[in-house]
């Protein structure tokens, strides 16, 4: 497995077909109006193309802007300039300029995102939470239940917890619910922000296995993993964010 740090597009030979994520000249600067208009530059000039079956791991020291970059790619943060094109159906959609309903459709069908923290409506049973992305995509409720149960079982979440809302779960349990909610669907593009941070070694291995299974099926991934073992277990290449860091 390749872990070398190389510029954009260098590695195309080892992946198949056209890229499913194309980031061009992406930059992000925060402007904080309530702090005397202070300007917080994060990164600039980012170019990145990711192909099906690739897992690009964003690397760099803490605070260098990895999470910000991942969020900008997901369309959660609004970039200051540049574009992020994502494969959706048969074309590429620039989610930095697409109308809101199209961005939501890309997120619903083409691009999944595992955040660091679980954020859901309170008091909903775990199983229902995991079924939801399937139901949203028109999957039959019986099949959705089957797939959700299989996913929770794969992630070793004790069956006794399935009917409970995750609010009282441990950090690791919540994180696995979070992963299950995304991995239960086969998104062509996956963004992962520290999905294994609060997991024990055994569960980390399970997640690595799930990710590699998805990758083998052609999913393109961009992730942030501080744990070197996980990084080595999933990455097809590293992408050093430090080089795009803007001076404050």
């Amino acid at each position, binding site marked *: 497995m390749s872990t070398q740090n190389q510029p954009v597009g260098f590695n195309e030979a080892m992946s198949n077909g056209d890229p499913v994520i194309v980031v061009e000249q992406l930059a992000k600067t925060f402007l*904080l109006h309530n702090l005397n208009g202070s300007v917080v530059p994060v990164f600039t000039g980012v170019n990145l193309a990711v192909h099906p079956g690739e897992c690009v791991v964003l690397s760099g020291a803490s605070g260098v802007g990895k999470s910000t970059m991942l969020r900008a790619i997901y369309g959660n*943060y609004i970039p200051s300039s540049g574009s992020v094109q994502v494969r959706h159906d048969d074309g590429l959609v620039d989610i930095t300029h697409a109308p809101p309903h199209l961005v939501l459709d890309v997120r619903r069908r083409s691009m999944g995102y595992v955040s660091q923290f679980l954020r859901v409506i*309170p008091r909903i049973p775990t199983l229902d939470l995991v079924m939801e992305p399937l139901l949203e995509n028109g999957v039959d409720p019986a099949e959705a239940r089957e797939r959700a149960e299989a996913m929770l079982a794969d992630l070793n979440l004790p069956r006794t917890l399935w009917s409970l809302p995750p609010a009282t779960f441990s950090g690791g349990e919540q994180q696995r619910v979070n992963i299950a909610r995304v991995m239960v669907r086969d998104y062509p593009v996956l963004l992962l922000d520290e999905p294994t941070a609060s997991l024990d070694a055994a569960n980390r291995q399970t997640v690595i296995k799930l990710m590699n299974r998805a990758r083998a099926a052609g999913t393109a991934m961009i992730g942030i993993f501080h744990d070197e073992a996980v990084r080595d277990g999933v990455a097809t290449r590293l992408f050093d964010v430090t080089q795009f860091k803007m001076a404050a």
Partner: protein
Amino acid sequence: MERADVQHQDDAALLAVRGLNKRFGNVVACHDINFELRRGEILGIVGESGSGKTTLLRCMAGQIDPDAGQVVFNSRRHGVKDIFALSEQDRRRISREEWGYVHQNPRDGLRMRVSGGANVAEPLMMNGQRHYGQMRELTLEWFEKVELDIARIDNKPRTFSGGMQQRLQIARNLIHSPSLVFMDEPTGGLDVSVQARLLDLMRLLVRDMGLAAIIVTHDIAVARLLADRLMVMKSGEVVEHGLTDQVLDDPQHGYTQLLVSSVLQI
């Protein structure tokens, strides 16, 4: 005031608000509001009290005449029309057939003198249903959908708790399969524990029915969980408008930044 018919609209838009203005004396309640809403979309309108949220909602629902601007609705019966270019009769018919309006206080949206079941069945009768058995059946279905005890179908709403009254109001506003529902602080007066359940219910119903909703709230957490898109209003103007997570996680306007950073964390 421009009230011309609008014929050539983008078919994708269910509702389009154009240049809407409303003042009360010297107070500007809504200034030059423009946006579109598609089928199946949930739009949240957030802002502090007095920012013009509810006035905007009531203008869109045809309850207040704006001073200027259009509210163009893609009606099943009338096609794409500025609702203020229609007669009052047609506007009332659209409101009855194709819209729902959920009030913050369920007492404003329910008839307190008739039973819960009759409250839920009323929109059916208003739209010409004259078969008691069929209405009763559908009413029972909706009691179950909003998780009300069907044994209490003939009780008066005042015997229901606040959360139950609000669920009653929601059933009443969805039973006739509207394409658009206006909600004014739908979880405003409720216990936090009841709120969560209601939020989930509304989200599921909206998803299953594919309807569009405009939800006015000052509760950022409610907006995050329900809305696809957010409009942030301040002093009658929309200061920011975008995907809910963009607006809340990466607010661009100073007021939105202040609003988001003021939310209490637990």
